[in-house]
C-alpha cells in the first residue's frame, strides 16, 4: 500500500501542517514530516477535510442504469470529495428487502470509490401501506440503519408512528420525505407568484410544513429519532427550531440547490430546474442559510438525482424531478457559507456520519484516524460543464455557472480515489 505525504496543508482551516497517510490511517500530523517511501502531494494552499458524507444520494441501480450506476455515482461522489454516500431506496426493484440492499452494498464494495451505505424502504414498494422488513435489512450485510420512502412521503400517520417505534429496536432512524400528498396532487413547482404566472400547479410550502409538524410530534410522543429530508421552506425551519428547543430527537438536511436557487429558475420551463421539493423563494433560501449556520439544520445532503436525457429534454410537466448534486455540493457550500471550514466539516461530514452511524467517517485527520479525507483548493474557480461530469447523467442546474473551490484529491481508507482533480479509476 502506497504511503502519501501531504505537505503544508491546512487541516480544517488550521495553520499548515504535513499529513502522512499510511496503511489506511493518518499515521502522523506535524510540520517537517519526512517519509522517503511516500508519494508527496504538495498541499500548499489546500484545505483537508474529513471525507464528505452524503445522507441522500440516488444511485439508480438497480433499475435505471442508463441514468446512473453504483459505480458511476460513486465516482461522481469521490470527485465531489465524498468518502461515503447513503443510497436511497427508490430503485427498481425497490430496496425494501435484505436482498436488494445487500446487492447495492456489494456493488458499492466492488466499485470501492466511496462507502455505499444503502438506505432501506420504510414500506413495501414505497407504497405507504405496509412496513417493509426493516429488521431483516438492519441485520443484513448492509447493516441498514436509515429507512426512507424518499420520493414518497410516509403519509399515513399510524404507519409513520409504527415505523418510528419499530426501528428503535436496532437504533434505526426514519428519514421522511415531508410532502402531504393530497396538497401536492399534480404539483409542478413552488406555489407562489411564479407558479401563478407560469400556469404550473403549485406545491405549497404548507404541504411540507404540515408533515414535519406532525412527525416531530409523533417522534416526541414515541421518543424516536426522526430525520427530515431536504427541508425547503422558512416555515419548516421554524417548526424544526421549536421541536429542537423542546428536545425532540430530530435532525434535518438541506440540499445545495435549496441554498442557492429560487423558483424563478422555472421561468425558462427548462425541467433541469424541476426538483422535489421544488425550488422556493429568496425568503426561504435566506431562512435555510441561517438555519444551516445556527444548527437548526444539521446537514447538507445532495439529493443527487440523476436522470436520463429523455426524462429532462421534454415538457416541464412530463419531466422527472431531481438534479445532480454530488460533484458541485462542496462548491455550493463554499459559495453559500464562505471558507467556514469547521462549519462545512460539521454539516457535510461529521454530523451526517454520526446520523448514519458510519463510524469510520466524519473524523478529522489526526494520528490514528481512518484516512477518509479530501483536499480542496479553495482559491480555484471552475465553470460547470455538464459533459465533463463523472455522473452518467447531465442534469446539473449549475451548467455554465462559475463556482468556487475544486476537489484536488480524495482518499478512502488511505487509497486515493481522486488525484490531481481526476478520478483514479
Amino acid at each position, binding site marked *: 500500500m502506497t504511503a502519501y505525504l501531504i505537505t503544508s496543508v491546512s487541516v480544517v482551516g488550521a495553520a499548515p501542517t504535513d499529513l502522512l497517510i499510511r496503511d489506511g490511517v493518518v499515521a502522523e500530523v506535524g510540520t517537517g514530516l519526512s517519509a522517503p517511501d511516500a508519494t508527496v502531494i504538495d498541499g500548499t494552499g489546500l484545505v483537508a477535510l474529513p471525507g464528505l458524507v452524503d445522507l441522500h444520494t440516488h444511485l439508480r441501480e438497480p433499475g435505471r442504469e442508463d441514468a446512473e450506476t453504483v459505480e458511476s455515482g460513486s465516482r461522481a461522489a469521490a470527485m465531489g470529495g465524498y468518502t461515503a454516500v447513503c443510497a436511497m431506496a427508490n430503485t427498481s426493484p425497490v430496496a425494501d428487502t435484505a436482498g436488494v440492499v445487500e446487492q447495492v452494498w456489494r456493488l458499492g464494495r466492488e466499485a470501492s470509490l466511496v462507502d455505499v451505505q444503502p438506505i432501506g424502504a420504510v414500506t413495501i414498494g414505497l407504497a405507504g401501506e405496509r412496513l417493509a422488513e426493516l429488521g431483516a435489512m438492519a441485520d443484513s450485510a448492509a447493516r441498514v440503519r436509515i429507512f426512507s420512502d424518499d420520493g414518497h412521503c410516509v403519509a399515513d400517520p399510524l404507519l409513520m408512528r409504527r415505523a418510528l417505534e419499530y426501528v428503535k429496536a436496532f437504533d434505526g432512524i426514519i428519514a421522511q420525505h415531508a410532502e402531504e400528498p393530497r396538497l401536492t396532487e399534480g404539483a*409542478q413547482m413552488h406555489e407562489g407568484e411564479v407558479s*401563478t404566472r407560469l400556469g404550473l400547479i403549485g406545491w405549497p410550502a404548507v404541504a411540507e410544513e404540515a408533515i414535519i409538524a406532525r412527525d416531530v410530534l409523533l417522534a416526541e410522543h414515541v421518543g424516536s429519532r426522526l430525520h427530515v429530508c431536504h427541508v425547503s421552506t422558512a416555515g419548516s425551519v421554524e417548526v424544526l427550531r421549536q421541536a429542537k428547543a423542546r428536545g425532540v430527537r430530530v435532525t434535518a438536511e438541506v440540499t445545495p440547490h435549496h441554498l442557492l436557487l429560487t423558483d424563478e429558475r422555472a421561468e425558462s420551463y*427548462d425541467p433541469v430546474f424541476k426538483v422535489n421539493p421544488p425550488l422556493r423563494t429568496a425568503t426561504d433560501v435566506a431562512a435555510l442559510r441561517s438555519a444551516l449556520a445556527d444548527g437548526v439544520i444539521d446537514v447538507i445532503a445532495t439529493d443527487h438525482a440523476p436522470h436520463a436525457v429523455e426524462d429532462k429534454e421534454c415538457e416541464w410537466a412530463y419531466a422527472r424531478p431531481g438534479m445532480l448534486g454530488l460533484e458541485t455540493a462542496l462548491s455550493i457550500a463554499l459559495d453559500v457559507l464562505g471558507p467556514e471550514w469547521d462549519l462545512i466539516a460539521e454539516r457535510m461530514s461529521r454530523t451526517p456520519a454520526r446520523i448514519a452511524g458510519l463510524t469510520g467517517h466524519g473524523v478529522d485527520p489526526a494520528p490514528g484516524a481512518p484516512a477518509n479525507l479530501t483536499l480542496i483548493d479553495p482559491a480555484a474557480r471552475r465553470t460547470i460543464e455538464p459533459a465533463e461530469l463523472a455522473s452518467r447523467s447531465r442534469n446539473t442546474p449549475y451548467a455554465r455557472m462559475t463556482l468556487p473551490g475544486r476537489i484536488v484529491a480524495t482518499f478512502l481508507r488511505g487509497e486515493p480515489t481522486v488525484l490531481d482533480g481526476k478520478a483514479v479509476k
Partner: protein
Amino acid sequence: MIKHLLSGGDLDADTATEILDTAAEMATVAGREIKKLPALRGRTVVNLFYEDSTRTRISFEAAAKRLSADVINFSAKGSSVTKGESLKDTALTLQAMGADAVVVRHPASGAPHRLANWVDGSVVNAGDGTHEHPTQALLDAYTMRARLGRLAGLSVAVVGDVLHSRVARSNVLLLSTLGAKVTLVGPPTLIPVDIAGALAPGTDVSYDLDSVLPNVDVVMMLRVQRERMNDSYFPSAREYARRYGLDGPRMRRLPEHAIVMHPGPMNRGMEITPEVADSPRSTIVEQVTNGVSVRMAVLYLLLGGNNR
C-alpha cells in the same frame, strides 16, 4: 420585431396595437369575394395540436390559408405523437420539413417555450396547459376595441375559473399593457395566489360578481368545467351558477353600453344563460370572426418579413 408569440406579455403596447391595426385591415379581406392575400406565399405553417380544439385549429388554418401559406395539420391523433414520440423529436421532424412557423396547442404549460428552443421557425402559442393563449387575448382586445372604440381606461371583469384559465392569464397581461383595468372575479378557490404580483400590478380581485357588474365596460365569462366540483373548488354546479353565473337579471345590472364576452365553448346554464349568450350585448360570434383576422395579423407580423 418579435420572433415568437408565446405569451401576452411578449407584446408591448406598440406591437399589440400594430397587430390590432393590421387585423382591422385583414378583416376587410373577409368581406371580399376573393378572401386571399399573397403575403405568405411559399411559407409553411404547421398546426401542431396535442389537444382537440377544432375551433382554434380551423381559425389558424383559415388565417394561414388566407395569407397563401402552405398549411400542414399535425394532430396528436393518428400521428407518431400517440406512439410516444417526444416533443423534441417532433420538433426536429418539423424542422426538417422546413416549417416557418409552428402553431402549437399543448396540454402542458410551457411546451411552446420548449419548442421554441428546438425549431428555427417562429412558434405561436395556441394555448398551453393552464398557462396562456395569447391570440385569444388579442382577438378579445380586438373585439372590445371594435365594439367600444378604445381599450385604454376600459374596466374589464374576467369571471370564473381563473386558476385553470389560459385565456385569463393572457388577457390580464395584454389588457394591462393596453391600459385597461382588469378585475378577476370568482370563488377564492379558483383565483390563483399572488395574481396581481404574478401578472400585472393593479389587477383587482373580487369574490362578489354583483358588486362588480355595475362598474364594468366588459364582462368576460370563462368556461367552468363541472368536474371541478369533484376537487372541491365549489360545492355544486347549481351553487356556482347562482353565485358566479351570468343570467338575465345580472346582465341588466351592467351599464347600458357594456358587452358580454366568452371565449367558448360555453357551458350554457353553468357560467352563462342562453338569454345572455344570445343577447345583443354578447360578442361571442364576433369573437370567432375576429379570431381569423387577428391570427392573420399575427402570422403576417411573424412571417411577413425577414425577421430572423
